[in-house]
Every structure is written in structure tokens, then in C-alpha cells.
């Protein structure tokens, strides 16, 4: 049984003649502790797939299953987290780093000492100084902000994390640091991940399995080694040649 499954999911935007299919019978699965890389250009439907997987948008047809049961956001709160695209907007500018990281935990516990201890623990895990806890987002660099976002996502010990273009806005060298961090944390925590990016190189580094989307459809879905060795779809091949 897969950790998270999209089963022939269709999502439409608009009505009548102007209907646009954002997802067309998309099926994909993320296994426990594994990373599924989702590659596609803008408009391919990969971000819609992310919001469906996170339960933020209900599919028009098909089913989303978490742990074999239909996805309900309330039930999965804390088991599912996300690290999203924009480092500037990943954090509330009015809140301290510590408050941001602690937020997902505040749903579950009111024990302040416990929360503080967890925040300190996670700052260390994402290689940030303890002093950063009291700072606000505008005092941090893009890479530091994304590390904070990762710490926030990890604080509830989730089993599934969606990374939606989480490193795309970062400089190359900072990007490499964050990618290495994600790999290390996954080895330590064993969360399953859906890693979405337009950059095949980034996905190839992280993913156990690569899924290519184009115009709302999955055109290829294969284990990373097999994909790199010989993609079957011409579009995947052209993506690989770009590298």
C-alpha cells in the first residue's frame, strides 16, 4: 500500500466551453520513505497535483488516498506538511522564526516547554544558529528562510512532505545546500516526499522515482535509474538532453 496515491484524478478549471483540464486522469503514488520527483513546465499541472495531494483542492473526478484511506485534511493534519515556493512568502513577516516553526505544533499541544525544546532541536537539524529563533524573516537570507520553512514542516514528524518548487528561487550554491539538507533529513526522518520542480537535474538528485507531466497528463513514470538510462517518451528525452 502506498503512502499517498492519486488515482485517476481529474481537475477542471472554469465552466462550459472555457473549461481547462489542469489534471487529466492523473495517477501517481508516493511510497513510504521514498521521494517521487514530479517534473514539468509551467502549466503542466504539477502545482495542481500538489494541492490535490495536500487536500487543498478536491478532485473533480478520481480519488486521493492517504495510507489507503480517502484523504481528509482534518484527519491528516500534522502527518502531512509542505515546503512551498517563495522564500519571501514562506514565513509570516510579522512572526519570529520560533513562532513560525512552532505553529504546526500549536494545533496539538499547549506545552510551551515542549514546543520550545522541539524548535531548538529542529533549528539544529537544519543547521541554523539558535539565535535565529528570535529573528524575523526580513533579517534572513533566502536560504535561511527556506531552512526555517523546512524546520516548520518537520516539527510534527510528518510522514509525507510536499516540496513545491522549494529550491527554485534560490541561488545555485544555496540550492545545493538545501538539497543536501533535504536528503540528509529524509535519511534521518524517513518521510515520504513529493518533490516538484521544473528542473530535472534537481529532481534527479533527490528522487527515487521520476514522474514527468505535460499539459495535465503524466507522460512518463519510472524509477530514477531507469529514467536516466532511457526515458521512453520523446518529451522526457528532450528534457534529459537539456541537461
Amino acid at each position: 500500500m502506498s503512502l499517498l496515491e492519486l488515482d485517476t484524478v481529474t481537475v477542471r478549471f472554469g465552466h462550459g466551453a472555457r473549461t481547462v483540464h489542469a489534471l487529466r486522469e492523473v495517477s501517481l503514488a508516493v511510497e513510504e520513505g521514498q521521494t517521487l520527483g514530479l517534473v514539468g513546465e509551467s502549466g503542466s499541472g504539477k502545482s495542481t497535483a500538489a494541492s490535490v495531494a495536500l487536500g487543498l483542492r478536491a478532485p473533480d473526478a478520481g480519488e486521493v488516498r492517504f495510507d489507503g484511506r480517502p484523504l481528509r485534511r482534518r484527519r491528516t493534519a500534522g502527518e502531512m506538511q509542505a515546503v512551498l515556493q517563495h522564500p519571501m512568502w514562506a514565513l509570516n513577516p510579522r512572526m519570529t522564526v520560533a513562532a513560525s516553526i512552532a505553529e504546526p505544533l500549536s494545533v496539538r499541544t499547549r506545552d510551551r516547554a515542549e514546543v520550545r525544546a522541539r524548535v531548538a532541536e529542529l533549528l539544529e537539524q537544519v543547521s541554523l544558529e539558535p539565535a535565529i529563533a528570535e529573528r524575523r524573516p526580513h533579517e534572513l537570507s533566502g536560504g535561511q528562510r527556506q531552512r526555517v520553512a523546512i524546520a516548520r514542516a518537520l516539527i510534527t514528524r510528518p510522514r509525507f512532505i510536499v516540496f513545491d518548487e522549494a529550491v527554485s528561487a534560490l541561488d545555485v550554491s544555496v540550492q545545493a545546500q538545501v538539497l543536501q539538507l533535504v536528503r540528509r533529513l529524509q535519511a534521518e526522518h524517513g518521510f515520504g516526499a513529493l518533490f516538484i520542480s521544473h528542473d530535472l537535474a534537481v529532481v534527479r538528485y533527490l528522487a527515487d522515482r521520476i514522474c514527468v507531466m505535460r499539459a495535465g497528463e503524466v507522460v512518463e513514470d519510472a524509477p530514477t535509474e531507469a529514467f536516466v538510462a532511457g526515458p521512453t517518451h520523446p518529451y522526457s528525452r528532450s528534457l534529459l538532453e537539456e541537461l
Partner: protein
Amino acid sequence: MSLIEIDDLVVEFRTPRGTVRALAGATLHASAGERIAIVGESGSGKSTIGTAIGALLPANGGFAGGTVRVDGVDVGTLDRPGLRRLRRETLGFIPQDPIATLNPTMRVGGQLALVVRDLGGDASRAALAQLLEEVQIADPADVLRRFPHQLSGGMAQRVAIAIAMARRPRILIADEPTAALDANVRREVLKLVFEAAEQTGATVVWLSHDLDAVAKWCRRVAVMYRGRIVEDGPTASVLEAPEHPYTQSLLAAMPSRLRRGVEVRTYTEMLASQAGEPDDAEVGA
């Protein structure tokens, strides 16, 4: 004599929090017809060097040392009419976000006509359509009628290239022209830029953060770090045997070169650990 001669250039910005040095003694020479890529990360000063060539610095910035010469003329000593002539006759800019640089209230045709008329050219519908055809826009008549916000990113960038090339500039400065575009459109736009430059013999200065992409188009690359050019040479040798540790770390960090189990550290981190400082030196970038 080189077409562009930047010598020991220092550029400073006045901010509420004090003076910020964007260029700290950058030196770069480029001859006519050369294609040169300037590679650097945010805060490296590559955008500043691009704007400094046309003395197009923001109002709070200024030259604080060194010189920029274009065609032997010191840009810093030019008066307003002289600068305007330099920008009009010698320089072409291709921006990062073309939609934002086009006038949102004017149709594409109107904006092109303005540029062409300004140059004393033929601003008839047919001539404008011809300009767009040259940048491989399939349906020029339709695009001429559109407003900038009705264009796709790739389309808008083609229009921006058409506008820049209409002046037949001797220097074409492209500041991350493909940053906002999808991978497949990216290649076509770059091809267009370099082919257009080839035809007119323009010198291309391409500002980029992507060493891999640079290798396909430019024979020469300059790497910037913290306001200085730290490495400058033939692209092939810089990519294969980088001399400066920053270039080495930048190459190692390229996602296409990342390998599982091989730890990559940033140059800033390396410097910090050598100096015995904590690892949060990133903030200054």
C-alpha cells in the same frame, strides 16, 4: 583597443543603512563581436556591471572609482546628451522581465512603431510585421494588436529582442533574459539572441547564473563574486579546470553535477570556516 573596457570599477549605493559596495574593483575587457557571459549569484554585482556599461545605475548609485570606456569614450565623463547618444546608438538591453519593461497601456505595434520612427525607419504595418517575423513570431499581425499582458513570457521576450535589435546596437546586454521562461522556450530565445547578434556583429554581454547554459553559447566566461571578477577565460577551460575556489564550488553546486553522497560546500562557508566564523555569512549576500 577593446570595445568595452571596464577597469577597476567601484560602484556604491547609498541606502538608509549606509553605503553598499556593489562593485569592488571589477575589471573586464571585451572586443567587438565577442560573446561574453558574466556568471554570478545574487549580490555578486553582475547586474550592476551590466547597467554600468550604459551608466544606467539607479539614482542612489554612483561610480566611486575606476572607469568604464565604451569605444574608447569614458562613460563617466559623458554629459546627458552624450550618454543618451551612447545608449541610443551603441547599446541594446534585453531585460529579465520583458512584460514589465513594455508599456502596459500600449499595443505592441504602437511601441515598436515608436522605436522605429525614432530611428527614422519605416513604421508601416508591414515593416513592423517583418521585424516580428525576424524574431520568429509566427503570427505577427496578431501580436502587433496585443497588449503586453496578453503575451506569453517567450513571446514578450521576442518582442523585447525585436525592439533591442531594431537599433542595430553594437553592444547587446542581456540580463538573465530567460530566467522567467520554461526550459524549452529558453533555448529558442537564447538562439534568437545570439543569431541576431551574429547577423549584426554585435558584442553580447550575457548576465547569467547558469554555468551549464553558458557553455553552449559563449566561448568566454567571466565569474563574479562579491563585486569582483574572480575568473575570466575560455568557457571550456573554466568549466573543466576552474582556478578560483569560488568557481570550483559554484560548478560543484550545479544541480546537474550534484552527486549523492558527495558533500558540496559553498565558497562563503569555506571562507567562514577558515576565518573561524559561524556559518551565517550568507546574510551579506
